[in-house]
């Protein structure tokens, strides 16, 4: 590991500037994990919109539960899957604040299915940043509701079988038909161009809330090299070639009236 000074020099050389909303802490994430990139995108978006001091996040149960160590903002924990309910409670009593929930696929699309559907259906004026890496990371790589058919996990050792395990859930499409949802977009972090696109989606979600337009959700297709049993490079390739076929990126719904 390079020393802090060396890292700073290297950062300087490459024009790196740490967003103020991102703390100095070194993340605990595995090499090649997508959370670091997404944390940074959100931090950049908060800085650019000048909302860091009035933003309150709700961290999920999952790899990103330690989000409060990495964002320089107020953060509450929530029981597994209840993140949108906690965010609802915060936003309703502090409507002038910006509230977002940050959730993984197990948290949001399995145990928290009721909470996400009803927060969207009520049109809660919150942002949800949904990280879909098709696997439970923190607990050791079990099948998630978004796990692809034939994908091997700790609990689908022979690959996910439709008959036995059901099908991958497309969350954006599930929420699309609810009248309460305003803005739903699926992005990937599979290339620098797509990372920039992902940041634009995060900015748009925050602006939707700032304008009082209601519920927005951005789904990030993100790599989990550790539990995909792939190199970081192959994981990116897997997103760009395989995941996007099952979870097509794009704007799923946009009633924001923004560009």
């Amino acid at each position, binding site marked *: 590991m390079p020393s802090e000074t060396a890292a700073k020099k290297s950062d300087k050389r490459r024009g790196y500037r740490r967003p103020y909303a991102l*703390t100095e802490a070194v993340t605990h994430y595995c090499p090649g994990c997508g959370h670091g990139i997404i944390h940074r995108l959100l931090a950049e978006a908060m800085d650019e919109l000048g909302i*860091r*001091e*009035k*933003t*309150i996040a*709700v*961290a999920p149960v999952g790899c990103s*539960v*330690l989000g*409060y160590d990495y*964002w*320089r*903002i*107020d*953060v*509450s*924990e*929530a*029981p597994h899957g*209840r993140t949108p*309910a*906690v*965010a*609802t*409670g*915060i*936003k*309703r*009593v*502090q409507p002038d*604040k910006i509230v977002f929930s940050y959730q993984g696929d197990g948290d949001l699309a399995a145990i928290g299915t*009721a*909470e996400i*559907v*009803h927060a969207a259906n*009520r049109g809660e004026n919150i942002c949800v940043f949904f990280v879909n890496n098709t696997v439970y990371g923190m607990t050791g790589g079990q099948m998630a509701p978004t796990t692809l058919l034939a994908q091997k996990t700790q609990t689908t050792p022979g690959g996910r079988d439709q008959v036995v395990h059901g099908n991958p859930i497309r969350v954006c499409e599930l929420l699309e038909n609810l009248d309460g949802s305003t803005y739903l977009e699926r992005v990937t972090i599979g290339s620098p161009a797509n990372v920039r696109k992902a940041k634009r989606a995060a900015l748009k979600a925050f602006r939707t809330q700032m304008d009082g337009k209601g519920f927005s959700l951005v789904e990030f297709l993100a790599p989990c090299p550790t539990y995909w049993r792939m190199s970081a490079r192959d994981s990116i390739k897997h997103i760009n070639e395989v995941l996007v076929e099952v979870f097509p990126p794009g704007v799923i719904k946009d009633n924001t009236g923004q560009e």
Partner: protein
Amino acid sequence: MSANQILMSGNEAIGEAAIRAGVDAYFGYPITPQNELTAYMSHRMLEEGRVFIQSESELAAVNMVLGAAVSGKRAMTSSSSPGISLKQEGISYLAAMELPAVIVNIVRGGPGLGNIAPAQSDYWQGTRGGGHGDYRTICFGPSTVQECVDLVYLAFDLSDKYRTPAVILADGRLGQMMEPVTFDHLEPPNPPEKPWALTGAKGREQQSIKSLFLDPDVLEELNVRLARTYEKIEQNEVRWETLQMDDAEVCIVAYGTSARVSKEAMKRARDEGIKVGLIRPISLWPYPYEPIRQAAETVRFFLVPEMSLGQMIEDVRLAVEGKRPVYHTGRVGGNVSNPKEILDAIRDCCEKV
């Protein structure tokens, strides 16, 4: 009835008491026999410009309470037995995150779906923490509609003071019955400052409220801090009522609706010359062990009428420490003993001892 008294059901009176206590947000989900409370809040909270949500589940309701609580606001949810089982997840988190909140349980028959008739079979759940982990919740057992009002108001203050959730354990009969109540004596709410609340990191360092402590030494610190809080509550917040214990040979220990019926049975027993007294726990946790311990020095035996097959009786036995016999009586399944049944139990026990 004085001019300032109004006739209200227990459920509605609890709602109005919460409003007088300055509840900022109420989150509920339908379940009988507490629906009048949610219905009452659905219009009163909006009239007051406060937050009301009918949630998608009890799980969501208690976690919305958690969200309002981390924001430093006063929040309440209510339910009945099966719904309270679902809320235990959130209550454990509230306790671990040292968050104030008031949870009302209008107890019905159980286990399982049970029925919608009154019961006291959630005593263990209300007084032993209820969810996972090493924690307690303040737990009050009112026996009149007026006491529902007073204890709900107090529950908000104590919950804020000790930063721990408080439970109101009232049975379905109290929720449904109407009695005259007054709110005139309740002071305007005066919640303490909450510098720990999550309000945005403006002009200060970021804050977080959590219950995950991966380092065992750090989690142990939390457990010990919580235990110290519980010790303070045990020292300061024990509440009970004593009736005719001065010359009593028999001591009834009963709370809530069972205490009301016991009072009538006690009167009839005294008419027959059996000197019966009553200790009525008002705080079910912290429990009034001391007055019961003292009574064990003088009475022949204890009788514990409950609308369960014997839950609070364990606390009575803990206080008595085997010095005197402790008997149970009561009906279950949503039934309520009448005074004659309790009187018969007193007579039977007199023959045994």
